[in-house]
């Protein structure tokens, strides 16, 4: 068990190193740190001197080491577009994205799981067919299209919900939250639904598929043969066995949510990291791109690690050592 944990940690570290390498390559070679910092008039000698001062002529491993060191101290360099430290830009926008992601994830779980269970247990009901059809929409429609349609329906036509922005936010230490104000709550509804609809449809279909598989197993057949009630069979046995793989997949999907936030933030002009990243891509702002990559990679790797460990904790087959009986 301990060996497993250590192995996973090393794996995670390896992935982070690879990502850091990619980020470093981007940072150092794709962008030109010099040209973006100085004007056109700067002389060649001044540029050369600047190169020396910034350590751009040092051996590559040294530069990489310095890069990693800086990263660990949250020093991501200066944005080409805004000429401000990248960490400030990210720090300002991090809470917005996180809140949006968490609310979406919660929404998708709270609706996706019950609906998935319902459609598995009531395969032939018209409601199940309807829900399945709708879920197909949910996973077929691109996120931006959902956002636009929602805006069109609720903001333009009905005028009941805002189409952009975060509403009023409350500052709590280094975090800003929109969940404590009325306008903030209203502002997060459409973006959260947009971001969470795909996940919800996915989870619903996943739960349904898993549950149908589980309901076909021998141990469910045996449970029925023992005369256990439908409730015990469906919710006691089947549901528990269904949720184990579902929970892990849902956890991994959280990373997806953070990535898709890019799109949602664009549609709703939500002031988060995603929008920042997009502008960086559009304007070839390498430091921001590289920093976003590192941060998001760290989050993903952390999620993967937690999910793997969680799986071991939940499934007794993996947790306990097998003893012959």
């Amino acid at each position, binding site marked *: 068990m301990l060996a497993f944990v250590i192995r996973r940690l090393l794996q995670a570290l390896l992935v982070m190193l690879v990502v850091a390498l990619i980020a470093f390559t*981007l940072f150092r070679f794709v962008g030109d740190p010099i040209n973006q910092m100085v004007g056109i008039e700067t002389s060649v000698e001044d540029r050369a001197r600047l190169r020396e001062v910034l350590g751009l002529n040092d051996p590559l491993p040294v530069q990489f080491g310095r890069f990693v060191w800086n990263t660990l101290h949250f020093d991501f360099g200066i944005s080409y577009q805004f000429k401000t430290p990248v960490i400030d830009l990210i720090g300002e926008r991090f809470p917005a994205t996180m809140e949006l992601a968490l609310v979406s994830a919660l929404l998708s779980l709270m609706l996706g799981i019950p609906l998935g269970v319902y459609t598995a247990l009531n395969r032939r009901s018209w409601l199940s067919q309807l829900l399945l059809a709708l879920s197909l929409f949910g996973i*077929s429609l*691109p996120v931006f299209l959902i956002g636009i349609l929602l805006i*069109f329906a609720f903001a333009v036509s009905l005028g009941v919900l805002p189409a952009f922005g975060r509403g009023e936010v409350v500052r709590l230490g280094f975090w800003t939250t929109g969940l404590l104000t009325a306008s903030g709550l209203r502002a997060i509804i459409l973006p959260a639904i947009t971001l969470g609809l795909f996940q919800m449809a996915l989870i619903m279909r996943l739960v349904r598929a898993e549950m149908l598989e589980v309901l076909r197993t021998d141990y469910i057949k045996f449970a029925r043969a023992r005369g256990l009630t439908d409730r015990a069979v469906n919710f006691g046995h089947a549901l528990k066995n269904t949720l184990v793989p579902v929970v892990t997949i849902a956890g991994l999907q959280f*990373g997806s949510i953070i990535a898709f936030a890019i799109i949602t933030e664009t549609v709703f002009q939500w002031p988060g990291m995603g929008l920042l990243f997009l502008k960086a891509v559009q304007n*070839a702002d390498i430091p921001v791109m590289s920093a976003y990559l590192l941060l998001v990679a760290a989050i993903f790797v952390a999620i993967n690690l937690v999910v793997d460990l969680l799986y071991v904790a939940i499934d007794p087959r993996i947790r306990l050592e097998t003893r012959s009986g």
Partner: protein
Amino acid sequence: MDAPSQPVKPDARSQGRLAAFLDNDIVYSFLRSKVTVVAAAVTLVIVLAAFLSPFIAPHDPFDLRQVSLLDSHMPPAWAAEGDRRFLLGTDDQGRDVFSTILYGARISLIVGVLAVAFAAALGIVLGLTAGYVGGAVDSLIMRAADVQLTFPAILIALLIDGTVRALFGEGRNEEMVFWVLVVSIGLSSWVAYARTVRGSTLVEKNKDYVLAARLIGLHPAVILFRHVLPNVIGPVLVIATINLGIAIILEATLSFLGVGLPPTQPSLGTMISIGNKFLFSGEWWIAIFPGITLAVLVLAVNLLGDWLRDALNPKLR
């Protein structure tokens, strides 16, 4: 008791070949599911319309002589100020929305199919190599797959695009944008193919006929392509159909975000992003019609994929 023999229909093979074809399980399940038939029909219509767009589009939206700012911002033909020439209205440049949708759908489909083909080819080659050669090569490829799997496709596609943009600046022409799009979408989705193919290769590798082929001296590539590959086509097809829907969405999303196809050669995603700007001023048709087309297209592709998955699933047959 003289029980008559079982009331079973005569074997299909005794009937004509057409009847036998229609009786085949896969075709049967296809025709039985009305939804799938409709989905296939819709897909066919859109695909045909898209590819015949130069012939059936009432206007050529890229011919600058035909496009005039005087025609811009016109609502669909059935509205009060509509014009019969422009069935679904015009955009801010005066281009006919209907024609642009046809051309846009064509480009969206082409990018999607090419991206899937690229991803499949790359994934199959890497999967075969990893499975057959094993050892360090296998480890390397699978580690790369693991690292890539931690990231959603959109992120990878955006990253590649941003890098190319930084490297080449604004000196990129339309054709380059097109291929960068295909490659970035393809690169973000090869892993599923590689994993499946690798799995099958590992299984087939140890079978006797492979050993025999090696003894004869057949080149590994020949063995892989002639023997292993046919066994994997089923799952690869299933992945490809799921992938096609995702690829189309990915392209549309990238175009919407402004890093895909430009307004001069718009895909459905680009059109929606243009139309987005005019939603609030009441000119909904510029965004909504391309949006509906995109939605219907992806939905149809997904339905076909669903059916194909069920039909090829041995457990459900």
